[in-house]
């Protein structure tokens, strides 16, 4: 089948732009909603077609308009298979987010402007779709910033809460910080004046001196890391993602942060190529920090969406572990092993996109049903919302890297990539890579705990609030997206060998290393030398058949089931107040890692005014303020404010003082003339 790819690409842009404009001028909220969804969906489908066409054939797709903004190099589009993978991710999540959003945003009808939202939603998709297609610096940055601006306004959708507003500002600040690092990062690589096409950068990067290459790398890591949300640049993520409407959160967590991964891969594996080992070491360190930090904060979180956001930080950390391992292996001249790392990172990128989208969309249903994001007020949702619960369970299991779902497959690959690092005969690698393995293992253990809590507390047992008891499934159209991503999560898990083979092909085309890694042997997921193998499909079949046999034989013997109250040590009636809470669940781990959390605790007892032994109430509050923010960001903001305060003092109001400045500036300028003689 041949597809006119440039037509599909232009149709994608047209779809988004039309969606944006029609939504903006729509006469009613309902029409605005419809236009938003139709525009976004048709754009996404067209984008998906473009991406799949490129992925299927493997040859690039180019579209250059040098006359638009000629001075900045024109608009240049080039889609290779790496870009196409990310475009496919953006568009598939975009498509279902658009469908889901149509019903989800119905809640806003009449309450706030859906026109503006529609404009920004489509602009967001347009920006995200263009980022992996960009083939010169200007186009890339344009798309990058478009994505940032649009998502900023999407985060601000529910702007009544001051939290959302603060989240928006944090987000904007961090994303702009990343942007200003990107700018010099790209430009340093430009070999000659005006040569800012990616082809030129590729040539320019290889000619750079080592120090400049390392500068480029460090800038890229910081810039793309801040977009990907790695610790310690993650501060915006747990604020911004929960504040946005759920399908936007899904887009942000599912794909937007992945574009940071895309950027890092593009710059490191494509432009820079092999670098010193410390690059990989740094990425490993950042990855470990994010994986562990993300999951630790996710664990103690009681806000369902924020928990998911922190889990995204964790997963980005896992992706970075794969990239880091690959970079280390590459620097030691082991490109074939490095491919396992890159492949694992890409696979986890795709997998995380699937299950995180699933989780956020399910959380959106919960939010609409239970009217809260606080898990302490949920419970028992599985009864009112069985489909959502099933979706959330699949997502949770995948996020906890449980076989046979997709999260397991990619984490297994990351493990294998890290293990191949241990073969390098360098003490720092020999210590570093097992540590990374340990971190990854601890991370997945904690992730399991986190998602037991997330699912168990929100969906199981008895409802902790009336709203939770009354929660029902949303309109069936919201299920299509859930179904699609649940299926993707399962299929990508079971057929991970084919998926990883596809990833290898992509990596191969970018890094131009020959593929001597056996990618997927049928149903087997293989390690670098093919000596370790695991088959998720076989595992699934085995587990299912054993369970079936067990079930069938017990059924055959026949047994009675009696429904009764939960045993309660002699209590009469079971109430929701008896249940373990979200905070209680995380308490043991919170205590164990108290050095990291540094919680503040407040304990107060109020007694009866007349009889001191009668206690009226006991209040216990504990709060975790992430100390990274305190230690890292507070000094910066305080410093900026201090400078601002002293700059303010310059404008003291006295015209004499002002004239004195002029006189002093004049003297200085005159004196500078001597200096230049």
């Amino acid at each position, binding site marked *: 089948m041949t597809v006119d790819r440039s037509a599909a690409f232009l149709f994608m842009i047209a779809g988004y732009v039309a969606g944006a404009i029609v939504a903006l001028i729509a006469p009613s909220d309902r029409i605005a909603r419809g236009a938003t969804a139709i525009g976004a969906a048709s754009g996404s489908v067209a984008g998906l077609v473009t991406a799949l066409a490129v992925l299927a054939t493997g040859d690039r797709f180019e579209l250059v308009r040098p006359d638009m903004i000629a001075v900045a190099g024109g608009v240049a589009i080039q889609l290779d298979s790496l870009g196409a993978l990310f475009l496919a991710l953006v568009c598939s999540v975009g498509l279902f987010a658009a469908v889901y959003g149509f019903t989800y945003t119905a809640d806003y009808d009449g309450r706030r402007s859906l026109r503006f939202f529609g404009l920004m939603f489509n602009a967001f998709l347009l920006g995200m779709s263009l980022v992996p297609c960009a083939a010169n610096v200007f186009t890339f940055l344009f798309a990058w910033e478009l994505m940032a601006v649009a998502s900023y306004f999407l985060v601000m959708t529910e702007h009544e809460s001051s939290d959302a507003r603060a989240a928006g500002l944090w987000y904007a600040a961090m994303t702009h910080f990343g942007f200003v690092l990107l700018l010099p990062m790209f430009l340093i690589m430009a070999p000659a004046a005006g040569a800012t096409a990616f082809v030129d950068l590729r040539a320019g990067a290889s000619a750079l001196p080592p120090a400049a290459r390392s500068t480029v790398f460090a800038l890229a890591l910081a810039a793309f890391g801040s977009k990907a949300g790695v610790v310690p640049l993650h501060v915006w993520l747990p604020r911004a993602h929960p504040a946005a409407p759920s399908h936007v959160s899904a887009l942000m967590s599912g794909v937007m942060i992945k574009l940071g991964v895309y950027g890092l891969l593009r710059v490191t594996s494509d432009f820079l190529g092999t670098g010193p080992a410390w690059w990989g070491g740094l990425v490993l360190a950042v990855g470990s920090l994010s994986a562990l930090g993300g999951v630790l904060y996710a664990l103690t979180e009681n806000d369902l969406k924020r928990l998911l956001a922190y889990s995204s930080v964790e997963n980005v950390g896992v992706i970075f572990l794969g990239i880091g391992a690959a970079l280390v292996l590459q620097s030691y001249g082991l490109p074939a092993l490095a491919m396992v790392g890159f492949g694992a990172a890409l696979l986890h990128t795709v997998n995380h996109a699937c299950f995180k989208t699933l989780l956020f969309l399910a959380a959106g249903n919960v939010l609409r049903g239970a009217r809260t994001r606080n898990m302490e007020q949920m419970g028992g949702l*599985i*009864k009112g919302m069985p489909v959502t619960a099933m979706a959330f369970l699949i997502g949770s*299991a995948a996020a*906890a890297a*449980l*076989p046979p779902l997709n999260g*397991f497959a990619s984490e*297994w690959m990351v*493990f294998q990539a890290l*293990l191949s690092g*241990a073969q390098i005969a360098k003490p720092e690698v*020999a210590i570093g890579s*097992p540590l990374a*393995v*340990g971190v*990854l*293992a*601890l991370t*997945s*253990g904690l992730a*399991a*705990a986190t998602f*037991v*809590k997330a699912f*168990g507390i929100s969906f*199981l*047992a008895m409802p902790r609030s009336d709203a939770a008891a009354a929660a029902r499934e949303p309109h069936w159209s919201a299920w299509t997206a859930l179904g699609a991503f649940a299926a993707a999560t399962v299929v990508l898990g079971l057929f991970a060998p084919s998926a990883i083979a596809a990833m290898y092909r992509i990596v191969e085309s970018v890094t131009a290393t020959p593929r001597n890694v056996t990618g997927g042997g049928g149903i087997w997921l293989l390690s670098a030398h093919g*000596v*370790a193998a*695991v*088959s998720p499909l076989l*595992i699934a079949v*085995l*587990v*299912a058949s*054993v*369970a079936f046999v*067990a079930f069938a034989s*017990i059924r055959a*013997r026949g*047994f*009675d*089931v*009696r*429904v*009764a*109250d*939960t*045993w309660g040590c002699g209590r009469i009636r*079971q109430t929701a107040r*008896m249940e*373990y809470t979200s905070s*209680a*669940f*995380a*308490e*043991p*781990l919170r*205590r*164990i890692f108290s050095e990291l959390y540094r919680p503040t605790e407040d304990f107060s007892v109020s007694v009866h005014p007349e009889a001191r032994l009668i206690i009226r109430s006991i209040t216990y509050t504990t709060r975790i303020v992430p100390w990274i923010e305190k230690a890292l960001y507070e000094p910066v903001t305080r410093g900026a404010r201090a400078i601002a305060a002293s700059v303010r003092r310059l404008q003291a109001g006295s015209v004499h003082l002002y004239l004195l400045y002029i006189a002093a500036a004049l003297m200085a300028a005159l004196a500078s003339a001597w200096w230049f003689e």
Partner: protein
Amino acid sequence: MSRAIAILFQTLLAAGLAPLVGGFIRWVKARLNGRRGAPPWQPYYDIQKLLGKEAVVSRTASWIFRATPFVVFSTSLVVASFVPLVAAPAGRFIAGDLFAAVYLLLLGTFFLALAGLDTGSPFGGMGASREMTVVALTEPTVALSIVALALNAGSTSFSQIVSRTLAEPAAALGPGHLLAFAALFIVTLAETGRLPVDNPATHLELTMIHEAMVLEYSGPYLALVEWGASLKLFVFLALAVNLFMPWGIAVSLAPIPLAIGLVTFVVKIGVLATAIAVLETRVAKLRLFRVPELLSASFVLALLAVLSTFLAR
């Protein structure tokens, strides 16, 4: 094909022997305490009895609660199929490697914890919370022990590790190997709910972990959960003995080596089970918040194992 049969045989063997190990440990402990104790095969009676009883299910529980016993049992059994017991056939009929085994067991634990929460009982929640804490903390040790083994074998595959240890027995007695064994042993105690981490013989609310989680189970469901738990213990013991001391294991599928393999395996398991029983009579249960200390000690052991393996190479 004969390999597939061997695996099937081993798996059935595991399923059959697993309850016995728990019973045996209990019996040895009773003897050491000077009691007569129940016979080692008592667990078989228990399972038999439970399978015939009616199951009581909490009003608040959902399908998760009913599905969990099957998940726990089947994952444990599938993991048992990975592990070389009597024979260590190479090749691809084993669906997973060490990591897969660990994560598959985690799947069972995941559901068990959910089931604990599902009933709404405070005990269930408490057990789930504690179980997940312990599991999370043991993961890195398990992984590092795997790394230590894999460093030698160049693979995380069971058969590779076993055959490498058999080929180079000197390496097996190296410090790295022993340290890794120690680490894995501690983890085994923690993961399978033995003293000093958990006490399988108590129903005291302050100390329960695993028992609290499965408190609401009864009848056939409880049978499956218990059987699954004993399989897990069995798998861990088998891992410990066969990965670290694989001598005697059958590398070919001829009858004689298989017979030798069976006998040595039973003996090895018996020795290790006795060791656990002895240990359990000697130590007291740790406070929950002292458990991390033990587990971090095991982590350090595993790390040292990796380092010394590396240095020995």
